[in-house]
């Protein structure tokens, strides 16, 4: 491969696997594996994903300079692989999850504590070839914090509000947070187990439920991965309708988030107004596609249903409503000094960390990382649409609110263009069957950030292995860093400005 990509050049030292699309996958030797990790640690490429199989581990890599993706696979001799987390911290949690799920051992790993497995699963290593009976686990050892007059505040996993479960262990000196350690995995549903051997239709429904608020993004990522694997050409109209759904989802979620962040500063007025706007988006979505969240709207091969007849009118009205009601809300946010006092300079996340973790989405763009999967590596129809990717450098709660505001505006612009340019034609294509094992990977921009789906279809066209990776994997760890030197009472604000997924992460 000679596409100017150093990543592909490095992978070429291994053995490329046939039938992996659209980007190459290579089987690598432990030496090459270490070299690739070296590249990760040195910042030559960033981590896209890290997932296992009973006898191998796969490393998804992203090279920004060339805009290419590559997958490196290492077969695990005696169930072991050289630790990635040792040299590249962003891989640590993914690595611990691989250990929990597959029973593979990361040699030289910096952290041997289980991550997803809390000792309450009926069996240990559920995805391994032969899984053992559940083993009793020692109590989870939180990282030690030493110093005078420090105290711990355990929060969760059950919270006072109606949110997903996660445990946060604060060590504070009075009000100042010295360390935050997260413990996640409470909503592990075993989706990867369910996906093994599922038909493509069933798998699409499962992946669409990994994280309900991003169901369109997951549906799209899965569909694109299947289409890449089977080399299916999707009709043009389907591409446009998918983009329409994705932008509606982004619009609804960003609206909800902007309101919710303000509400965490006890400014309920924004929540009330943003809540109304979000509801309008959901209702318009229901009119257009028959489901408020557009669940199962995207299927491999196209979309499950065409835009309803009255859909365009509903969307035009929605756009008009937004253009009338959204700017006053921006002014309200911008002109409420007491609110700005809470958001500005709160929850600063170092841009260097954002870069190291390859953190995408709003958090990345608020901290100077311009990555947007719609642009690069890009997928249709965004190459034919005009939109901007807002980027700020302040990396605080305020910047994350502003990125969301700007993205709402861009989504409105995109929906407008999609309605104007929506091509006619069929909305679904048959998946081509070949009777061989095929693999596909897709990277899609959800409202949280880039969703990665990697899958292997067996000869019968069923899913042999599928790994959906939520953007939150690289965002949760940054929250731990963002809260340092802030006060305890500002954590909800920082947390809401990140709005990471528990369900997508715990899988």
């Amino acid at each position, binding site marked *: 491969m000679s596409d100017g990509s150093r990543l592909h050049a490095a992978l070429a030292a291994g053995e490329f696997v046939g039938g992996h699309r659209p980007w190459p996958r290579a089987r690598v030797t432990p030496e090459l594996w270490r070299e690739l990790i070296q590249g990760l640690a040195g910042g030559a490429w960033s981590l896209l994903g890290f997932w296992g199989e009973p006898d191998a581990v796969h490393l998804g890599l992203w090279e920004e300079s060339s805009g290419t993706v590559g997958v490196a696979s290492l077969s695990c001799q005696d169930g072991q692989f050289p630790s990635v987390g040792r040299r590249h911290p962003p891989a640590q949690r993914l690595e611990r999850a691989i250990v929990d799920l597959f029973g593979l051992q990361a040699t030289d790993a910096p952290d041997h504590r289980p991550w997803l497995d809390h000792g309450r699963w009926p069996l240990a290593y559920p995805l391994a070839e032969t899984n053992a009976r559940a083993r009793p686990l020692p109590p989870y050892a939180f990282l030690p914090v030493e110093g005078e007059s420090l105290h*711990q505040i355990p929060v969760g996993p059950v919270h006072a509000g109606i949110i997903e479960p996660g445990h946060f262990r604060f060590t504070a000196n*009075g009000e100042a947070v010295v360390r935050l350690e997260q413990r996640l995995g409470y909503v592990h549903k075993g989706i990867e187990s369910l996906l093994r051997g599922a038909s493509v239709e069933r798998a699409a429904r499962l992946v669409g439920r990994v994280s309900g608020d991003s169901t369109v993004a997951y549906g799209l990522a899965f569909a694109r991965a299947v289409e890449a694997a089977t080399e299916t050409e999707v009709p043009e109209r389907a591409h446009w309708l998918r983009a329409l759904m994705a932008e509606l989802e982004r619009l609804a979620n960003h609206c909800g988030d902007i309101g919710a962040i303000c509400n*965490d500063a*006890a400014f*309920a007025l924004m929540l009330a107004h943003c809540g109304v706007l979000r509801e309008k988006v959901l209702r318009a979505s229901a009119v257009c596609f028959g489901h408020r969240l557009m669940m199962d709207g995207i299927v491999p091969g196209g979309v499950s249903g065409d835009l309803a007849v009255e859909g365009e009118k509903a969307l035009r009205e929605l756009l008009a409503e937004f253009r009338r009601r959204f700017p006053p809300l921006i002014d309200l946010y911008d002109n409420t000094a007491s609110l700005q006092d*809470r958001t500005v300079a709160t929850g600063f996340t170092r841009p260097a960390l954002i870069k190291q973790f390859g953190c995408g989405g709003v958090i990345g763009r608020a901290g100077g990382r311009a990555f947007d999967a719609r642009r690069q590596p890009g997928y249709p129809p965004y190459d034919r649409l005009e939109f901007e990717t807002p980027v700020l450098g302040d990396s605080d709660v305020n910047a994350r609110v502003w990125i969301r505001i700007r993205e709402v505006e861009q989504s409105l612009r995109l929906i407008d263009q999609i309605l104007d340019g929506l091509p006619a034609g069929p909305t679904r294509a048959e998946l081509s069957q070949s009777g061989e094992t095929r693999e596909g990977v897709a990277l899609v921009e959800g409202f949280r950030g880039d969703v990665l789906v990697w899958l292997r279809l067996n000869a019968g066209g069923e899913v042999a292995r599928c790994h959906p990776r939520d953007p939150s994997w690289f965002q949760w760890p940054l929250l731990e860093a963002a809260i340092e030197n802030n006060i305890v*009472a500002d954590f*909800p604000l920082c947390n809401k400005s990140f709005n990471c997924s528990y369900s997508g992460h715990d899988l």
Partner: protein
Amino acid sequence: MALIDYLVQGGQMLLVLMLAPLLTGWVRWVKARLLRRRGPSPLQPYRDLVKLSRKEVVLADSASWLFRVAPYLIFAALWVAASLVPTFAGGLPFSWTADLIAIVALLGTARFFLALAGLDVGTSFGGIGSSREMMIASLAEPAMLMMVFTLSLLAGTTELSAVARFMLTADVGLRVSLALALLALVIVAIAENARIPVDNPATHLELTMVHEAMVLEYSGRHLALIELSSSLKLVLYLSLVACIFAPWGMASAGAGSAAYGYAAVIYVAKLALGGVLLALFESSIAKMRVFRVDQFLGAALMLGLLGALLLFVSRSL
């Protein structure tokens, strides 16, 4: 002293108790309307109190006798304090007990026990709540006392019904000191009642709570008493503002029952107006950082001090 005066005194005590949940419900309802929500009926707090009083009390294993006793003590202290403030009639049999400093002391007692109860169970949230509450109180109490000094210098007494009477006389005039004292009192009232921007009475975020964090472990009738006490405190502060700075329409001792009835209606109208103003203010502002609260309350303290100083300066001229 006529029997009717004792009856009115008793009626006043009952009135504040009966009105307290309604005022809380009213503020919530107005806030909901301001957010374009329908909001629960203003009577909802009564239903909540009934519901809570019927529920079983769940006590933490680590709770001591103090935890169980505290709600009653707090309720008693706050009810007495709220009853001391002349609401619609002054010059009643017990008016001489309605001393501003006594009220501040009763409020301090209630707070002390609430903070102890917050610490008692030993949860981290209770501890956080108590420490924050004490930080707020240590700033709010001096500000409150400063305001009391200003008033007593002006009126020559700390007895509330006499202060109210004095305020109604013509020789008060328009005084800067009074305006400053009013501001100080309003700031203290907001802080003491755990309202936005100091605390958020409606929050579900454990880490930002102050008052709610202290009472997180309470349930059943204990919680009902605590909730009722909080409502009483709101009535108390609004009554205090009304009594000192807007005593118009208050009946004096020996007035007929018609006059008392009329005064009571005016009093309720004042509370309702106060509730609307509070809801408006709360809807237009975000909660401040915990460490900004000292500046906010420091301003109250300075305003009180300034009021007192101005009084001395103007006297000596």
